[in-house]
């Protein structure tokens, strides 16, 4: 069979080949290139990808090629693992380590999936893959080719998206091929993520008539005659259709060649592609066809061993039978497995089986594979395809496969559980349990809205009472993920707590989360009461995660109340207990975050940084991604406090990555407020308003430090000259804090409120605020809080002495902005008392700080103050920092550049600088933009040149 030679070159894709060649050029030049090639089945995506990968290899680039399979969509990270050769026996320890992670047991495999059972393997694997790519790229350009992305598992798609975001400046090419359909939500998300980072999208259209002529001429090795061309015109420019049609005609002896022309006797409209493929395959001997039918059950690619298992025939017999199919190019050997030359060939054979036959074959395959000890995912896939409603075997295997997949790919787990419940009879008692597990899987997957809908659907009907609380806890968590809905989350968790049906461990978990939820809604008394109860129950039950939740709630509670020593004591204990818990399970709730915030409030910024770094490292090791955004925000706050505003901005920008992956957005509220503050001080009022508006939108609830949103709004109103509104806004904010006991905010917003109240003639209000700040200061021996109290008192009494004391109190601390603002206040008071010289010195001190912070607005105001007093500055005024070029780089950015020049990877740089790899990436993105370079290679060269 098969009288045509394989088509040696691609026809009619010159523009696409050129575009892909240019992508390789970009990679060769040291930068990233991402290309998506989209087109219908048979249109030539795979050939194009194969050619570009061959070209890449020919240019000395590293190549990793993988292809997704329809029947392997449930194998987490399957495509990437195959592309990078991640097997346990790999001589490369990085690849072997990834294989070990993929094979390791997750907590979810041992029991039902719950909202807190996430062992976090998924993000560890994601990070391991991205680290591997980065390290490979540091040794030379790498091109990753991924075919048939429409079948790729969700974890692979997630990783590609993360990888694309972290590629800036690395010589990495990612070329993905996909069909227009099917299009999963995960694939849509990936396409959006790739588009956001500048991916090129190539649409493969049908071949032109000229290209088809060229293709036919190559295949028949002659000039095609008009009837032959008319015949292949029916293939509508689909090259696979054209070649299959030519193959069928050739096998039927319908093509004659004479005088350099190839022709058919008569033109007949070709049938569909599927029938054309079958027409060609039908020439194979019956035993080969039988084997192909069985093989089609296994998917587009299959091992001879699996085929032997499902057919019950010895592999040696099958290899003989399949030899004919390989010679006819129906099958190919890809080195590891046999593969149908095109997925459509497999589809044609598969779809040619009657539905009942297909189901029976799948069922038998599943049973035989199960007996042979095949992986649960593979067994489940076949049993599910062979099942009818009520098939308990299929349901059991699907649930088992879901629990196995959950730690690495909760999306897959949710999908498998969806299929399992779809097979169960509506009255099946086990159905609700699996639906509850599915809801938890959706939570893990960051599909918060889907999780909420799944929970509500369960709660909205006659649910098995023993499951109600599990579902409510899951729903509560889903609602807590988005802070504005925290009150609803609290409501669900409280209902769960009150249920008499709760088991002991469930009650402990529900109580712990309920306490945390109360904190988020601003009910400090309620949070404390619930957390004390939860802590006691959790410690007794040895529930380490619940213990951490309760203690973190108590520590944060004490912090917000302004009881810093107590807060730190609880946080220290929480970290210690988590450290001592088996497998450090207690760290699955990020207890280092409150400790980091508390230390920052103590102005112990170095310790704050260390604790945040430690927490992040543990979270990375445990794979608990959901805390990342909070860590990032804690670090942003520490940077902001220390006056390293560029770093703070980088951390806040970096924060959006993990937030997008986990669906948790608490930290964005505070982040946007801090961003707005920085922009305001830097005189970017438009940007400040944008950030503040987003922060305000998110801060509809009364969660952790949402008061900052109102504070920023008040300062923006003041900047607009709306002093009365500014005072009213800040006054309301103050009252909210007072009502709920959030005294920690007093020294933060107090000085501005005193200032605004005095300007409005509300001296009583100013005195009341100053007294409250003083009260907080009296119970915390913390310099900045003492300084804030002195500043408030000084402003109220227009007392330069007190304001000087405030300046003095701030000085040893780490709050340059507050110090500078207090210097201004002290200068104004000194000037009013005629001490122009001291006023000038204080303003000079403020201006120096503003310069360092790049706080243009404050700088201008302080300079204007100087001019009004007729005071000349003692030294030359420097200009605002450059926006581009080497002078524009921040100290952190310079440090990153130095380490890039040394050839370190982002994770290595992160370890060296005590920041996350994501923050390093953000710094690098800023550096690239400022220096107008596009690759690390260019950057290193530029750095060496700059050093001269």
């Amino acid at each position, binding site marked *: 069979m098969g009288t045509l030679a394989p088509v040696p070159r691609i026809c009619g894709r010159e523009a696409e080949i050129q575009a892909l060649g240019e992508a390789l050029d970009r990679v060769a030049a040291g930068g990233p290139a991402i290309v998506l090639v989209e087109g219908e089945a048979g249109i030539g995506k795979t050939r194009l990808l194969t050619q570009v990968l061959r070209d890449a290899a020919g240019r000395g680039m590293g190549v990793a090629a993988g292809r997704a399979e329809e029947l392997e969509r449930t194998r987490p990270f399957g495509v990437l693992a195959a592309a990078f050769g991640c097997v346990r026996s790999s001589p490369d320890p990085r690849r072997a380590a990834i294989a070990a992670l993929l094979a390791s047991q997750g907590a979810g495999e041992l029991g039902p999936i719950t909202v807190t059972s996430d062992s976090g393997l998924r993000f560890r694997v994601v990070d391991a893959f991205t680290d591997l790519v980065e390290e490979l790229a540091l040794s030379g350009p790498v091109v990753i080719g991924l075919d048939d992305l429409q079948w790729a598992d969700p974890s692979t798609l997630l990783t590609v998206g993360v990888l694309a975001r972290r590629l800036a400046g690395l010589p990495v090419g990612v070329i993905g091929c996909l069909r227009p359909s099917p299009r999963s939500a995960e694939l849509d998300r990936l396409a959006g993520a790739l588009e956001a980072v500048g991916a090129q999208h190539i649409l493969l259209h049908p071949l032109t008539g000229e290209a088809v002529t060229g293709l036919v001429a190559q295949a028949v090795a002659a000039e095609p005659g008009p009837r032959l061309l008319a015949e292949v015109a029916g293939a509508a420019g689909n090259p696979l259709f054209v070649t299959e049609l030519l193959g069928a005609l050739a096998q039927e002896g319908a093509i004659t060649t004479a005088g350099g022309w190839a022709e058919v006797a008569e033109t007949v409209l070709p049938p569909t592609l599927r029938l054309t493929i079958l027409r060609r395959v039908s020439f194979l001997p019956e035993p080969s066809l039988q084997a192909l039918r069985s093989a089609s059950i296994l998917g587009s690619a299959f091992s001879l061993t699996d085929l032997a298992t499902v057919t019950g025939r010895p592999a040696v017999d099958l290899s003989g039978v399949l030899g004919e199919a390989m010679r006819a190019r129906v099958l190919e050997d890809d080195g590891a497995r046999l593969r149908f030359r095109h997925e459509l060939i497999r589809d044609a054979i598969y779809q040619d*089986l*009657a539905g009942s036959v297909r189901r029976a074959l799948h069922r038998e395959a599943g049973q035989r594979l199960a007996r042979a000890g095949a992986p649960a995912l593979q067994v489940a896939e076949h049993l599910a395809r062979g099942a009818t409603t009520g098939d308990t075997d299929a349901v059991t295997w699907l649930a088992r496969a879901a629990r196995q997949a959950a730690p690495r790919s909760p999306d897959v787990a949710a999908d498998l559980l969806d299929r399992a419940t779809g097979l169960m009879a509506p009255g099946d008692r086990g159905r609700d349990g699996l639906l509850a597990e599915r809801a938890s899987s959706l939570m893990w997957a960051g599909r918060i809205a889907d999780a909420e809908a799944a929970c509500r659907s369960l709660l909205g009907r006659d649910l098995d009472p023993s499951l109600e609380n599990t579902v409510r806890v899951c729903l509560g968590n889903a609602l807590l993920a988005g802070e504005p809905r925290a009150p609803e989350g609290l409501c669900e968790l409280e209902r769960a707590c009150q249920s008499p049906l709760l088991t002991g461990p469930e009650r402990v978990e529900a109580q712990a989360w309920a306490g945390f939820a109360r904190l988020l809604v601003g009910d400090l008394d309620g949070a404390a009461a619930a957390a004390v109860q939860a802590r006691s129950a959790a410690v007794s039950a040895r529930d380490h995660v619940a213990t951490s939740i309760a203690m973190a709630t108590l520590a944060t509670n004490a912090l917000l109340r302004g009881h810093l020593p107590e807060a730190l004591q609880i946080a220290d204990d929480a970290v210690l207990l988590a450290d001592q818990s088996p497998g450090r399970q207690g760290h699955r709730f990020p207890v280092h975050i409150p400790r980091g915030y508390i230390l920052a409030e103590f102005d112990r910024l170095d310790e704050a940084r260390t604790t945040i770094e430690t927490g992040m490292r543990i979270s990375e090791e445990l794979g608990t991604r959901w805390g990342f955004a909070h860590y990032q925000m804690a670090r942003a706050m520490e940077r902001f406090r220390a006056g390293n505003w560029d770093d703070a901005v980088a951390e806040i920008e970096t924060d959006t990555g993990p937030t997008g992956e986990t669906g948790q957005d608490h930290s964005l509220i505070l982040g946007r407020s801090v961003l707005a503050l920085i922009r305001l001080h830097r005189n970017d009022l438009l940007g400040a308003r944008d950030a503040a508006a987003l922060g305000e939108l998110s801060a509809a609830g009364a969660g952790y430090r949402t008061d900052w949103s109102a504070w920023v709004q008040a300062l923006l109103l003041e900047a607009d000259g709306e002093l009365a509104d500014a005072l009213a806004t800040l006054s309301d904010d103050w009252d909210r804090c007072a009502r709920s006991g959030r005294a920690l905010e007093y020294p933060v917003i107090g000085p501005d409120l005193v200032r605004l109240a005095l300007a409005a003639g509300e001296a009583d209000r100013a005195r009341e605020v100053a007294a409250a700040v003083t009260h907080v200061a009296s119970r915390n021996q913390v310099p900045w809080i003492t300084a804030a109290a002195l500043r408030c008192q000084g402003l109220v009494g227009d007392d330069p002495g007190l304001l000087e004391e405030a300046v003095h109190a701030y000085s040893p601390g780490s709050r340059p902005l507050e110090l500078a603002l207090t210097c201004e206040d002290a200068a104004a008071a000194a000037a009013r008392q005629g001490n122009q010289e001291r006023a000038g010195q204080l303003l000079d001190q403020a201006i120096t700080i503003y310069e360092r912070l790049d706080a243009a607005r404050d700088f201008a105001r302080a300079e204007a103050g100087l001019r009004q007093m007729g005071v000349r500055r003692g030294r030359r005024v420097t200009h605002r920092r450059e926006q581009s070029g080497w002078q524009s780089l921040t100290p952190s950015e310079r440090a990153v550049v130095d380490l890039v020049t040394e050839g370190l990877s982002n994770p290595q740089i992160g370890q060296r600088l005590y920041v996350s790899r994501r923050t390093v990436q953000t710094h690098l993105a800023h550096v690239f933009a400022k220096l107008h370079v596009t690759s690390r290679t260019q950057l290193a060269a530029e750095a060496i040149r700059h050093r001269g």
Partner: protein
Amino acid sequence: MFPATRAETVGLVEIRIVLDIVEPPAGRLWAVRDPGQADHPRSEQGISFTGWLGLLRALYEATAEPGSRPSPGS
């Protein structure tokens, strides 16, 4: 689905198909050497097939072996 040229190559044979299922097809077929005959001979059971592949192969069996046909125009 076959090209009209097929009639020239297999001679005067009428194919009668009884379909039990339409898609993918399943049933039996007969090659009737005398097209005027009203019904198939009772003695003949026909060739069973399932799927398009089975139908194609049944047709080859009822007419000629694949590849043994003379090429068009010969």
